[in-house]
């Protein structure tokens, strides 16, 4: 497969239109802006927690482009801001989550970044790593069961999460039943402070696919187009009823794990800086400019627009109320019966 090389500036579009390329790029810029906003609000003491996806922008923008809105299902994890934006969540919805407002899909119950939206086909997930993967497989089963071809489930997780038993069980079941399921691993080389080599002896996660009897491949997750091509190919296989695929995107976690983490305890600033050379956001910008898909002015306008949109979403979300204290008691079960009422 010919690939866009972000270093040399060559461009293989894989059928993506100028508009789609611009959309991907805009997603990447928006991710960074919203990440930034979360950290800002945290520093301002307005929210107790933030977690960013810097380094995952290209991977997520590319993967989102392979998702068919209104048809496919996404089972993401907490580092999937860009993926969730890319399948249709709005900055306002992201800010609702950051501020834990009553209108948030989770009603302010979960940490930010734990997006959920039935309308968008985004499955609710908890903080318990890998626990969402059997759900994704079950959803894929439901799709296949009803004979709904042309639909697939895209599930994601980090490199560290592949160590969990539920990762294995999910992969195996999806393979046995040839389900419309794509397992996308976002390999950023870290699990909080634990580097890849302590997580696994063999660092190419995609190679596990053969053991399950499904195709596997790896792609450069710093390249949104290559990402799109790899994920699209896997999704198309799944949608055609040809079964699951394991795709692994390599990327890097530029920030600490979250605002609760200090990554200088386990890696040096220099090591991270070194990897910043590959930062997908400026690299993709340069390629798009070189090929005349955006102009520097376009980019400036985009940034401005994104900042405005983010500001508006921040103000709108912040102005909304928290859930009521008594909302604590809702939605334990359906209907009236709830044990503490008696």
């Amino acid at each position: 497969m010919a690939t866009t090389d972000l270093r040399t500036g060559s461009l293989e579009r894989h059928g993506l239109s100028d508009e789609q390329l611009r959309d991907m790029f805009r997603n990447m810029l928006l991710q960074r802006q919203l990440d930034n906003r979360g950290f800002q609000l945290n520093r301002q003491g307005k929210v107790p927690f933030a977690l960013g996806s810097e380094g995952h922008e290209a991977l997520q923008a590319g993967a989102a482009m392979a998702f068919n809105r209104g048809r496919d299902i996404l089972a993401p994890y907490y580092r999937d801001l860009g993926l969730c934006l890319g399948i249709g969540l709005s900055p306002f919805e992201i800010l609702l989550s950051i501020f834990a407002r009553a209108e948030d899909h989770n009603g302010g119950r979960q940490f930010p970044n734990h997006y959920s939206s039935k309308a968008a086909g985004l499955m609710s997930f908890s903080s318990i790593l890998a626990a969402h993967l059997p759900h994704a497989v079950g959803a894929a089963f439901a799709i296949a069961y009803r004979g709904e071809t042309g639909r697939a489930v895209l599930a994601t997780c980090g490199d560290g999460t592949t160590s969990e038993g539920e990762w294995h069980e999910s992969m195996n079941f999806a393979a046995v039943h040839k389900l419309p399921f794509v397992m996308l691993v976002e390999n950023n080389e870290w699990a909080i402070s634990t580097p890849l080599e302590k997580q696994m002896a063999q660092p190419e996660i995609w190679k596990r696919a053969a053991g399950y009897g499904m195709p596997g491949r790896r792609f450069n997750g710093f390249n949104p187009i290559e990402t799109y091509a790899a994920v699209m190919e896997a999704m198309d296989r799944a949608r055609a009823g040809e079964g699951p695929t394991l795709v692994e995107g390599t990327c890097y976690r530029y920030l600490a794990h979250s605002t609760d983490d200090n990554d200088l305890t386990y890696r040096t600033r220099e090591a991270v800086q070194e990897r910043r050379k590959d930062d997908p956001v400026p690299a993709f910008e340069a390629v798009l400019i070189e090929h005349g898909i955006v102009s520097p002015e376009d980019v400036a306008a985009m940034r401005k627009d994104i900042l405005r949109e983010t500001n508006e979403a921040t103000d709108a979300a912040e102005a909304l109320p928290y859930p009521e204290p008594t909302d604590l008691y809702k939605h334990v079960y359906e209907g009236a019966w709830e044990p503490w009422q008696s």
Partner: protein
Amino acid sequence: MAVVSSANSTVMNNVEAVRATLYEAMKNDERTVILGEDVGARGNVFLITKDFVAEFGERRVIDTPIAEASIVGIAVGMAMEGLRPIAEIQFADFIYPSFNQIVGEAAKIRYRSNGEYTCPLVIRTPYGGGVRGALSHSVSIEALFYHVPGLKIVAPSFPDDVKGLLNAAIDDPDPVLFLEHKKTYRLIKGEVPDGHYTIPLGKANVRKAGTRLTVVSYGLYLHWALEAAERLQEEDVSVEVIDLRSIRPMDKTAILNSVEKTRKLLIVHEDNKFGGIGAEISAMVAEEALFSLDAPIRRLCGPDVPSMGYALPLEEEFMSSPAEMADAMRAMVKF
């Protein structure tokens, strides 16, 4: 309680009642699928789903890999996406690997998504001892789960309740853990109304009315408690026996009403005592009806050891008996 849509009934044992109910659910709703180990060609190790795969096909009766976390987890995903899965854990002892999916996930999906997603899932599993099941095929698990908000737990003892409660569990929009005492599978027979009916989750049933003592039980021990109560009846001592049926939600009203009347409470269960279901029942009464009591609340429960053993004396020592229960009842009545 039971809403009977036909005047006729059939005599069945508990296995047959589970089987008949599952069969109807499969017939009536295309969204229903059964998944678990050996539920297909083998028809489950107790033959509960015998011949189902021939009739409903492998897509609806799924022999899963041996992987309990994903049996439940995949069922959760099915339920979130519109199916009505009935997952089976082959023996209750093997439910532990799926604890995360039950407690961390299924029980919290409605809550954590603020009602946007739901998880209408039934997890069936045979539990309990007295069948020479040794250390790993005898366990009672209800107390490991009854503390979990978001989950419902049912433990019927009679075939008619099995059907009505299993129907209710299948219809329920939330996850239900459905516990079947395996010693009662073939031992306990009874009339089961034909046609579809449900028994509401959370309602206990006074299986024997009485005046001098309230006994609350469920599972195999409920039958033994009834037997013991009959013995006392022959001695002209009137004991009320409540079949708890649902463990969560628990029918506080039924228990309190009975205790207000009899003024004495004995709780009987096979599961270990410390932290068992009896603890909550007792605490509930100590909180709300303390001054109605004429005697300390007693719990007659399994001993606090990890399991009964395979060797017969180790099983017999663990298990209570109708005679022991009758003695406990007599002592309470005399108090």
